[in-house]
């Protein structure tokens, strides 16, 4: 089967406009007769649900949390990019497009990325109109900050809680439609299968997580905004409930899964403290605007620090290795995430890690305290040479910018980051891979759409900071509402989709069988036991650096673990009640399949690109070595066992950007 | 407008308004009483004026009584509603960690003040009504031709138990005001740069006024 991305004809800059001018529309009276299901209520799902309801469709929205406001987009910290060029520093739609394609290591689809850059500035207008309280300057205008991998300041933010504010904006738009009855909200519901009737996605099977009831819901189209699958690593910055189930079930029903191996390991997270750990906490990339990353130059100092005999603040400047500034002078501490993470791993692998486990580097704000402190002292007419005063003023400024992050750090680590440098280490954060979609954001199953992190389309092999929020909202507010209309315009005479068809029967039976099996299994290990084991395999063999041997082992080990899981997992309680273990078991079952495909994809991709680093493919300096033969999207077709999946390739063509070595030196 | 008594915010606004009224009355009451310490004559004159001036007697007095009743009834209504808002109590609730005892026990301090008001009415108001409106003696004079007010006041504070009860009631009043004063301002929406100052003033008011009343009671007890 050939993959058709359905990219519109014409020059890059006109594609989206031309497309919109020529699609079919649904008249308002007909929209009232069309149902759309939206899975997930994060930035993508929430904004899509609100917009589709505004347009007049009947929307049923589902989330597993107790309220749509709790979707994990809420945890995004640093900001959202938009090509507004309010700073007059040379930004433009093209530059945002260019940065994103380059940042993605030339593994994303040109037309999609350009469209993303094009609608980015509408997002800011929209959010401000909705009452999102972005940070402002004293003149009352919007403020910007910088993020990794770019040379302009185009990131809009609301302290370290940008995701929260944007999500609450989308949630408020949803609330308006829920109040009007145009969105029917299903909280604490989990989608457990997609129902395909006559080759088209026509509904879902969902489980009410409070009563355990299995429900059938039909619609003319199904939209998955169910997020990423970082939790396949067990430890990640994702929420505990974040899962791949919706996307994976779609995959099992025929939707291709693209680039599963592209995973973003975020460089600035709080290091693992022990075996009890249930999740990792991100420290926003925005901190790298002002923090400098270093490890000691001398092994003696490293040892002394680990033994607790030396404080990092006591190490003089000349004995510190600011390795990012050393290796990448042009971008310094603001290199993209994949580069920063690998550099941290390189130092720690060499033995320079600064905590007990040797897996941490410093993120130091001392220089920023000085810089900001002097500035503020100057503005207030105070003594710029009073060191204590300057430090205090500088800390004040940093507190205004990142106060919540510093507080979060202190609560978790029990150290005051204003007095001693933060310790950070990379952690799994975002997954660029996801369901394969065409330009319309539709999967290869007609009527099944995938938006936000759940699809693969815009970030290539590595996502730039502050681009996930942009993509989620762009997809939901401004892209999907057009493209889905074009599809639904052919469905105006279909009428209500019945839920008593054999396809619904079969899907429901399938779900029930799995639930029955798990609840009656009475094995000897908890769900977490298997999840942790899977996470260990993934982190060790499919983590920041991968090699063929390890990946082959991973495939075998995951497959064995999956068999053991189905044989030996123990799920307490019953089906007809709130049973978190059961919900978790269903999710982990899918992770155990996805993990294997992940490893297979990583094995197949004989190159290093973005978040995918194959040890066999690196330059003499240890940088990622891309291969032109792999300038394609790997889209996998399900065949029963993940290891038997069939690879389909979507070749990537770059007509408007020169593919070159990705250098941040 | 109908929202005023049917909504939670309306009710608390009404509570605050009646509180303001009562707090102003209290100040006025105190101002007259303290005269009894400095000048029995001024006290007598003012008392007679207040006791016979028709605006005070026929307009302010009923409003005051209604205000007290309203404040009390509304307080009870709120208490009942608030109890219904949590039908199962916590097994362990560490209220001291987040709020003052006074703020959590307004219903009890208020109830104590209400009981005191019963005594206070029995002591002063009922005899007053009896003399003026049942016996019809509006002169305010004793048989010896002097005003009776100071004399009556002194008599009341002879009994040590009564004085003790009065003092105790004023302690409750103080506790009630310690939360009530600033709470009333918050209820009407005043929370701004003056709030800190206002809170300080409220504390002072809540302590000084009841303390003043206690002083007056003790003064007359020991100076009779």
């Amino acid at each position, binding site marked *: 089967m050939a993959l058709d991305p359905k990219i519109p004809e014409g020059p890059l800059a006109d594609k989206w406009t031309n497309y919109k001018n020529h699609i079919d529309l649904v008249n308002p009276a007909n929209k009232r007769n069309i149902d759309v299901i939206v899975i997930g209520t994060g930035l993508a799902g929430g904004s899509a649900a609100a917009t589709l309801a505004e347009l007049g469709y009947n929307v049923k929205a589902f989330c597993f949390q107790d309220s749509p406001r709790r979707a994990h987009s809420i945890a995004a910290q640093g900001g959202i990019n938009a090509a507004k060029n309010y700073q007059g520093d040379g930004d433009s739609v093209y530059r945002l497009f260019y940065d994103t394609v380059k940042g993605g290591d030339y593994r994303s689809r040109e037309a999609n990325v350009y469209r993303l850059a094009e609608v980015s500035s509408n997002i800011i207008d929209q959010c401000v109109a909705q009452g999102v309280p972005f940070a402002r300057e004293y003149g009352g205008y919007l403020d910007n900050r910088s993020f990794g991998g770019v040379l302009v300041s185009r990131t809009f933010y609301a302290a370290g809680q940008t995701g929260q504010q944007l999500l609450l904006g989308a949630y408020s738009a949803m*609330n308006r439609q829920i109040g009007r009855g145009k969105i029917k909200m299903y909280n604490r519901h989990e989608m457990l299968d997609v129902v395909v009737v006559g080759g088209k996605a026509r509904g879902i099977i969902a489980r009410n997580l409070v009563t355990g009831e299995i429900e059938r819901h039909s619609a003319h189209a199904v939209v998955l905004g169910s997020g990423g699958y970082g939790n396949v690593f067990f430890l990640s910055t994702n929420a505990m409930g974040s899962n791949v189930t919706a996307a994976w079930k779609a995959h099992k029903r025929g939707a291709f899964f693209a680039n599963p191996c592209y995973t973003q390991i975020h460089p600035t997270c709080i290091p693992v403290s022990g075996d009890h750990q249930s999740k990792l906490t991100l420290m926003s990339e925005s901190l790298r605007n002002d923090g400098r990353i270093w490890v000691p130059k001398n092994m003696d100092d490293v040892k002394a620090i680990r033994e607790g005999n030396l404080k990092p603040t006591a190490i003089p400047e000349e004995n510190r290795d600011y390795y990012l500034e050393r290796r990448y002078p042009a971008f310094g501490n603001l290199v993209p995430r994949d580069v920063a993470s690998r550099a941290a791993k390189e130092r720690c692998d060499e033995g320079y890690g600064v905590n007990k486990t040797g897996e941490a580097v410093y993120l130091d704000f001392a220089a920023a305290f000085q810089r900001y402190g002097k500035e503020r002292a100057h503005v207030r007419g105070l003594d710029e040479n009073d060191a204590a005063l300057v430090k205090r003023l500088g800390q004040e400024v940093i507190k205004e910018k990142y106060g919540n992050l510093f507080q979060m750090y202190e609560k*978790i680590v029990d150290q005051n980051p204003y007095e001693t440098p933060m310790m950070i280490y990379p952690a799994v954060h975002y997954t660029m891979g996801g369901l394969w979609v065409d330009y319309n954001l539709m999967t290869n199953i007609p009527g099944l759409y995938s938006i936000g992190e759940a699809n693969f389309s815009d970030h290539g092999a590595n996502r730039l900071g502050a681009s996930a929020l942009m993509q989620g909202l762009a997809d939901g507010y401004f892209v999907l509402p057009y493209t889905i209309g074009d599809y639904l315009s052919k469905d105006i005479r279909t009428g209500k989709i019945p839920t008593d068809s054999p396809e619904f029967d079969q899907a429901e039976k399938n779900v029930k069988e799995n639930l029955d099996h798990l609840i009656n299994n009475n094995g000897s290990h908890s769900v977490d036991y298997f999840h942790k084991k899977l996470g260990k395999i993934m982190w060790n063999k499919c983590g920041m650096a991968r090699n063929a041997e390890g990946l082959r082992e991973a495939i075998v080990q995951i497959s064995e673990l999956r068999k053991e899981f189905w044989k030996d997992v123990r799920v307490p309680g019953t089906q007809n009640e709130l049973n978190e273990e059961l919900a978790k078991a269903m999710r982990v079952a899918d992770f155990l399949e996805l993990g294997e495909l992940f490893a297979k994809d990583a094995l197949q991709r004989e190159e290093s690109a973005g978040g995918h680093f194959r040890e066999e493919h690196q330059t003499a300096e240890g940088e990622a070595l891309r291969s032109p033969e792999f300038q394609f999207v790997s889209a996998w077709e399900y065949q029963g066992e993940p290891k038997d999946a069939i690879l389909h390739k979507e070749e990537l063509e770059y007509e408007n950007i020169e593919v070159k070595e990705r250098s941040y030196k | 407008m109908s929202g005023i008594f049917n*909504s939670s915010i309306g009710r608390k606004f009404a509570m605050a308004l009646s509180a303001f009224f009562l707090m102003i009355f209290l100040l006025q009451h105190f101002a007259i009483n303290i005269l009894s310490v400095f000048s029995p004559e001024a006290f007598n004159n003012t008392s007679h004026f207040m006791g016979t001036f028709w605006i005070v007697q026929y307009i302010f007095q009923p409003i005051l009584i209604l205000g007290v009743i309203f404040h009390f009834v509304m307080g009870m209504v709120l208490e009942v509603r608030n109890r219904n808002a949590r039908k199962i109590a916590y097994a362990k609730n560490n209220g001291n960690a987040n709020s003052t005892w006074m703020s959590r026990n307004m219903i009890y301090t208020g109830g104590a003040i209400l009981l005191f008001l019963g005594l206070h009415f029995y002591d002063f108001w009922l005899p007053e009504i009896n003399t003026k409106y049942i016996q019809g003696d509006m002169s305010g004079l004793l048989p010896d031709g002097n005003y009776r007010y100071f004399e009556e006041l002194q008599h009341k504070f002879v009994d040590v138990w009564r004085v003790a009860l009065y003092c105790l009631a004023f302690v409750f009043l103080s506790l009630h005001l310690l939360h009530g004063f600033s709470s009333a301002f918050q209820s009407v929406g005043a929370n701004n740069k003056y709030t800190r100052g206002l809170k300080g003033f409220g504390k002072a008011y809540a302590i000084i006024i009841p303390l003043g009343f206690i002083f007056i009671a003790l003064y007359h007890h020991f100076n009779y």
Partner: protein
Amino acid sequence: MKLTLKIWRQKNADTKGKLVDYQIDGIDGDMSFLEMLDVLNGQLINKGEEPVAFDHDCREGICGSCSLFINGEAHGPDRLVTTCQLHMRMFKDGDTIHIEPFRATAFPVIKDLVVDRGSFDRVQHAGGFISVNTSGKTVDANTIPVNKHDADMSFMAATCIGCGACVASCKNSSAMLFVSAKVSQFALLPQGKIEATERVLNMVKQMDEEGFGNCTNTGACEVECPKGISLENIARMNREYLSATFKG
């Protein structure tokens, strides 16, 4: 550390619950409170017992899922943290810890420590938004400058995570802090002022219908709020409401 836990267990909304004692050992100060409960649940599962149900998701203090009334305080004894950020170093070896659900008539218990906070959502449906379509065809974001102080205050109000600690801590189970945070966020911004009257009237009406209690200004909500939402917001909502009411 070794701890005694007194945990509220309740099979479902229709059955009565009770406090059940559990002993737990080997708890490390670096664990979060929820990780401690994970350990307990792991042990319960291994013993063939039902694990304790509690809401949680992001585990970094922002989603507002986690709740728990710990030793008589919402989100436990620490300040400006949610339960997931509360660390066991706040407790001592041998401590007895009471763990109860957030209690309010408007937050019925679903199971064990899980409560239904749908009432918060319904208050938001009533008016927690600015009525603007998401077409993106609004004016440029910088057309209307917003005073930085107002923008910051609006942001501070908007950081509310909707966890319900305010209701749980309030002796009256009042939701005023939550509702006022949303009302304030919009009331402070020029784009939100336009429908301020309807918003505050509708949201307060819904709040009252949900069965929350009346605010008596004890200030417990502000102290226990993991995001430090200020009582000033309640005063602002009172003002907004009163002026909306008098306007008719």
